[in-house]
């Protein structure tokens, strides 16, 4: 079997079609008896207090940024892994350097306490 990308478009159309149509059908078929209490956000039965979309812990941003940086490094490592056999010893040494730099950053981040949750 040869490589082909065009079937993915068909698959996407089928999946989106199924997803949208089934939700619409169930919206049309189901009963509609809204009342203010039913439509209020769930909070264990009491009246909701304040806005749900409250500000969250700033630490999330730090971890998110770290994640972004490290995840991009993962993506960059893929081509290296695929060509590893052809690159030979040079490729291995390159990777040792890369992992050394990676570890240096990682230890710095760890030492600064960016990975701790208090």
């Amino acid at each position, binding site marked *: 079997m040869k490589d082909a*990308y065009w079937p993915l478009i068909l698959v996407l159309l*089928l*999946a989106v079609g199924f*997803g949208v149509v089934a939700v619409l059908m169930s919206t049309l078929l*189901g009963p509609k008896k809204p009342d203010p209490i039913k439509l209020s*956000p769930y909070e264990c039965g009491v009246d909701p207090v304040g806005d749900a979309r409250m500000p969250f812990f700033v630490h999330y941003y730090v971890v998110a940024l770290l994640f972004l940086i490290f*995840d991009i490094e993962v993506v960059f490592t893929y081509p290296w*892994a695929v060509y590893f056999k052809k690159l030979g010893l040079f*490729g291995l040494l390159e990777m040792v350097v890369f992992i050394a730099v990676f570890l240096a950053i990682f230890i710095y981040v760890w030492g600064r306490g960016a990975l701790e949750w208090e």
Partner: protein
Amino acid sequence: MTQELVLVVIKMIVVFAVALLVVAYLTYFERKIIGHMQLRLGPMRVGPHGLLQPIADGLKLFVKEDIVPHDSDRWTFYFAPILNLVCALVLLAVIPFSYNFMVTRLNIGVLYILSLASVGTIALLLAGWSSGSKYPILGGLRSAAQIFSYEIFLGFSIMGVLMISGSLDLVKIVEAQSKVWNIVYQPVAFVVYIIAALGELNRTPFDLPEAETELVAGFHTEYSGFKFAYFFLAEYANMIIVSCMAVILFLGGWKGPVLPGIVWFLIKMCAFFYFFIWVRATFPRYRYDQFMRIGWKIMLPVTLANILVTGIVMMLV
């Protein structure tokens, strides 16, 4: 060209129909197996031994009232479950169930699956945010924290396999395992991959975004009817994907003696289903800071060491 098109459409419909049926019956087997593990019978009422239970559940969810809470962001609220399901279904297109049976073959199959699988988990974040209620938002934030923890070591754990097979093509990865399965060369990577897979599936012990004992139902607290069903379908469809990937990357795909390839593939896949259900019945839930600690401080160095050791051994041999 027309012949090719018809073939693709037929394969696509077969894969989708079988996958949705399998997904429906996975919920049944999960309830049944966990029931028996806890000395209960599980579903028994609908049909013999409750065999028609998934169909009854599906019909019930289909005609339920569709509730959209008034604080929610209406369009995102509808968009999130659809995105989650579409991402899960689209992934099925590239899984090679045997040497010839797949909807399409990509030379970047691994990248395709990893990238779209992570888009699917972002749907949970959207769902939590758009509900406009406190428990879903906490669930969504935890889901974000979870993505940050497992995604990196998930990516690194596959690296050893790619180094051995030298390709991102799923068929070539399986063909490279004709003699010895990758699990023999990469046992550490296999364990790490399974842990990351449990994180990606949001299943116990890493079901932090749902956490029904703390967050009611986490990100899908406000969902009802078929939108709620979508999250379930997507979770179980992702279970199929993750099991297929484990089989392809580590257990030699459709390779096996006597029986035809597709049967071997399905047997190995079912073993993983059983394993995931078994894990759910066995382990308690992790706290989310514990999961982040495992991900960043243990799994990441372990996978890096695994890459280096694999590289050095491949140089020496």
